[in-house]
């Protein structure tokens, strides 16, 4: 649809924000945590939570109610302004990613909040804003372990943004545009995962590291650094950090579906259903990897990005650029 008068655009933005926040809070945070526990139980030959609700499906609802009634503790000598604003920045940056993700197509056009013509660049930009929130959370806690965890996590996320950026450039080169809808429409005949398998692997690895998940979760694993940069946050603030993390993981998986797995294309079923099937398949892969591999040390982690992923991604970009130029000549 075209551009409406400014008050209607503002209203659309507010409604869209509420829809995206509720959608991500329910699907990513609550369903994602439940899936995590059930899948980890299945991989470890146990059942997972079954006490609350039919087969344990209401477990996250019970967890949310528990977290809501916890006390709000601010550590002594912590900076209250920075301690409080870090809680806002991390989920905000994660939720802003969803603006350019197409969830399907309808009779009136693609089901996307706003098809920006710099879509993929916008996604990279907003996911780089999370790093600032993490640094503020680590600093504002007035806790050496939180600060170290925050600095390490920030270094890890900044290092793994570069392979993601290079892969995004490669896919935009193939599709000829930065807009996510155009990239999906270019995959009607051949999904990009078939013509760019190396890019797909690099993207999945770098996305796992970008959201601080295993095997790259040194900074927040329970047996390391006491939960890292959010150790001093209680109750609902902790839940908001988890919302930011799981939301970012779902956004990365949705972007991988858009860039590599053909978005919403599929025979028979409606487009939104196909998108969700592919999305949850990738989420299952993420969770499977978490409970299968041991975790990296911080120097192995950073060395892996700078010495392995970036050269491979650069080589892939050069080879792709060569083939794109030669094929068009």
């Amino acid at each position, binding site marked *: 649809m075209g551009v409406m008068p400014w008050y209607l655009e503002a209203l659309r933005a507010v409604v869209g924000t509420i829809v995206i926040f509720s959608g991500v809070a329910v699907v990513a945070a609550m369903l994602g945590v439940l899936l995590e526990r059930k899948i980890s139980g299945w991989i470890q030959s146990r059942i997972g939570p079954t006490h609350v609700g039919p087969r344990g499906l209401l477990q996250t609802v019970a967890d949310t109610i528990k977290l809501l009634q916890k006390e709000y503790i601010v550590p002594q000598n912590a*900076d209250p302004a*920075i301690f409080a604003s870090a809680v806002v920045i991390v989920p905000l940056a994660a939720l802003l990613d969803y603006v350019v993700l197409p969830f399907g197509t309808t009779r009136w056009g693609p089901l996307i909040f706003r098809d920006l013509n*710099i879509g993929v660049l916008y996604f*990279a930009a907003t996911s780089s*804003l999370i790093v600032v929130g993490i640094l503020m959370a680590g600093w504002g806690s007035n806790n050496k372990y939180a600060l170290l965890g925050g600095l390490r996590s*920030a270094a890890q996320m900044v290092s793994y*943004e570069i392979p993601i950026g290079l892969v995004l450039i490669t896919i935009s080169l193939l599709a000829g545009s930065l807009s996510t809808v155009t990239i999906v429409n270019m995959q009607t005949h051949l999904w990009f995962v078939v013509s760019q398998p190396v890019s797909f692997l690099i993207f999945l690895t770098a996305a796992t590291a970008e959201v601080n998940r295993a095997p790259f979760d040194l900074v927040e694993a329970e047996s390391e650094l006491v939960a890292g940069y959010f150790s001093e946050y209680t109750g609902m603030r902790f839940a908001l950090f988890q919302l930011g993390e799981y939301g970012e993981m779902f956004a990365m998986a949705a972007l991988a579906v858009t860039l590599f797995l053909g978005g919403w294309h599929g025979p028979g079923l409606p487009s939104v259903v196909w998108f969700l099937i592919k999305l949850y398949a990738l989420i299952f892969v993420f969770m499977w990897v978490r409970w299968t591999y041991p975790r990296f040390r911080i120097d192995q982690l950073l060395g892996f990005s700078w010495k392995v992923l970036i050269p491979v991604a650069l080589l892939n970009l050069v080879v792709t650029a060569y083939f794109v130029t030669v094929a068009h000549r």
Partner: protein
Amino acid sequence: MTGEAIAFYVLAAITLASGIVVVTSPNLVHSAVALIPALLGVTGVYILLDAEFLAGIQVLIYAGGITVLILFVIMLTEGGTGLRVRQRNEQGPIAAAVSAAVAALFIALAGRTPWAHGAGTLPSYTPGAIGQSFLGPNLLLFEGTSVVLLVTLVGAIMIARKEDGA
């Protein structure tokens, strides 16, 4: 009051208010964190001026990169100890007078000059136009900047390296 005017005034207020916090806050970490809304306000101004590629690059590099770098260095040096040290030196009033005079000079110049209106319109897909320009008329600029980036990368690592025989 069109939407564009409201957007401009809101963005200008955010940018200038955050800028005032950056330059006057006695707490160094507060200054660095206030730099983020200032840079995001400038991003909004770029979008108003039809420069969307530049807006994306501004968030990616400035707000997501340089701010992180500044916060790292603050936390690793003495600005991060939280001690209440005097942050302003002796030339505070003179500095305020000089910067006010410079700003007033620029505003007076901007108001009095009849700026020419060029012909033509901006292309609607700016990344494509910028890319074509970098590989066409501005190729030397592009290659020169990449050499500068390489030199910066090597130089910054050499300067900041620990000198304990590593």
